[in-house]
C-alpha cells in the first residue's frame, strides 16, 4: 500500500461527506481515477452518507408548534412592553429634569422680571433649589434602579 494510497483512504469518509477542502478533494478525485480499491471503499462511505441524508425527518406536532408559538409570542410582547416602558421612563425623567432646571428662572422672570435673576439672594436660593431638586431626583432614581434590579431578579428566578 503506497503512502499516497493510505493517505487518500483516510480522506474517503470526509470526501463522501463533502467535507474536504478543494485541494484534498482534487487529490482524491485524481487517485480514484486509477484505484479500484479506493473507489469501492468510497462507495461504502457514500452509502452511509446517503443513508444519513435520507433518514426520515421527525416532525413536531401542530399542537406543539402552537404551544411554542404562543409562548414565544408572549415573550416577544413582554419584551416590547418593557422596551416601551423604558422609553416612557426616560422621556419622563428628561421632561422632569427640564421642568426642574427651567422652573426657577421662569418663576423669577414671571414674578420679578428678568433683572431679579441678578438679585443678591439669588445665588443662595438657587443653590438650595438645586440641592433639593437633586436630592429628590436622586431618591427617585435610586428607587427606580432598585425596583428594576428586583424585577430582573424575579425574572431570573421565575
Amino acid at each position, binding site marked *: 500500500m503506497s503512502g499516497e494510497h493510505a493517505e487518500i483512504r483516510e480522506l474517503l469518509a470526509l470526501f463522501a461527506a463533502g467535507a474536504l477542502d478543494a485541494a484534498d478533494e482534487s487529490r482524491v478525485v485524481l487517485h480514484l481515477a486509477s484505484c479500484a480499491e479506493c473507489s469501492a471503499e468510497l462507495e461504502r462511505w457514500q452509502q452511509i452518507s446517503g443513508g444519513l*441524508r435520507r433518514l426520515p425527518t421527525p416532525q413536531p406536532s401542530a399542537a406543539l408548534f402552537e404551544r*411554542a408559538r404562543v409562548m414565544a409570542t408572549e415573550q416577544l410582547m413582554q419584551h416590547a412592553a418593557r422596551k416601551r416602558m423604558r422609553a416612557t421612563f426616560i422621556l419622563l425623567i428628561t421632561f422632569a429634569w427640564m421642568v426642574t432646571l427651567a422652573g426657577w428662572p421662569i418663576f423669577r422672570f414671571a414674578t420679578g422680571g428678568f433683572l431679579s435673576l441678578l438679585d443678591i439672594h439669588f445665588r443662595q436660593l438657587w443653590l438650595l433649589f438645586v440641592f433639593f431638586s437633586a436630592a429628590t431626583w436622586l431618591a427617585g432614581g435610586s428607587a427606580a434602579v432598585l425596583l428594576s434590579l428586583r424585577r430582573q431578579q424575579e425574572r431570573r428566578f421565575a
Partner: protein
Amino acid sequence: MTGSFTLVREGGLGIDAAVAHLRRGDPDALATLMARYQNRIYRYLLRLVHQPADAEDLFQQTWVRVAEKIQSFDTSRNFDAWLFTLARNLAFDHLRRTRPESLDEPVSADSPEDTRLSRLAASGPGPFEQLLTRERAGRLAMALENLPVRYREVLTLRFEEEMKIEEIAAVLSAPLSTVKSRLRRSLEQLRGALEQANPGEAWS
C-alpha cells in the same frame, strides 16, 4: 431544505426579511420563522436528547429564547448558526443536568486496534447495499442513536441539516479541524457499529 425568502438590507448586510421584522418585534415574522425552521430544530433536538418529551420541551424553550434574544442577534452572523447555537445550548444544559455522563468527550478511535483499521483489513461483504430500504434506514437510525452525543450532533448537522463545515464550526464554537476530525471519527464509529450489528450482510 428551506423555502425561498426575501432578503432586506440592514446595517449594510442582506438579512432575511422575517429576521429583520422579528427584530422589530413582529409576531407574524416569528410565526414565519418558526414554520420554516420547526422540522429542522425539532429533529436536531431529538437527535441530541433522544426523548420526544424532552425535545418538545426544548423546542418550546428554543423559540422563547429566540424571542428573548433576537435583539442581540448580530446581523453579520448566519441566522441558522445562531438559531442552532441557541437550541444546542439549551439541549446541552439539559443533558448536563439530567445525564452529565453523556457529555463526556468520546474516546478517540485513532488507536491501532480501532474499528477502522480492523475493518479495512477485513475482506468480504458489508451491510450497506440497501440503505434505501426502511429496515436498513431503521438500523442506521439505531446505530446513530447509540453514538455519543457529540458524534450524533456533528452527523445530524452535516447530513440532515446539510450545514457546511464552517457553519457547523460556528454552531459548535469549535475550530474547523476539530469539526472535521469529529466528523470523521463519528462516521468511522457509525460504520463500525453497523458492521458489528450486521456482520453477515453483503456489501453492495
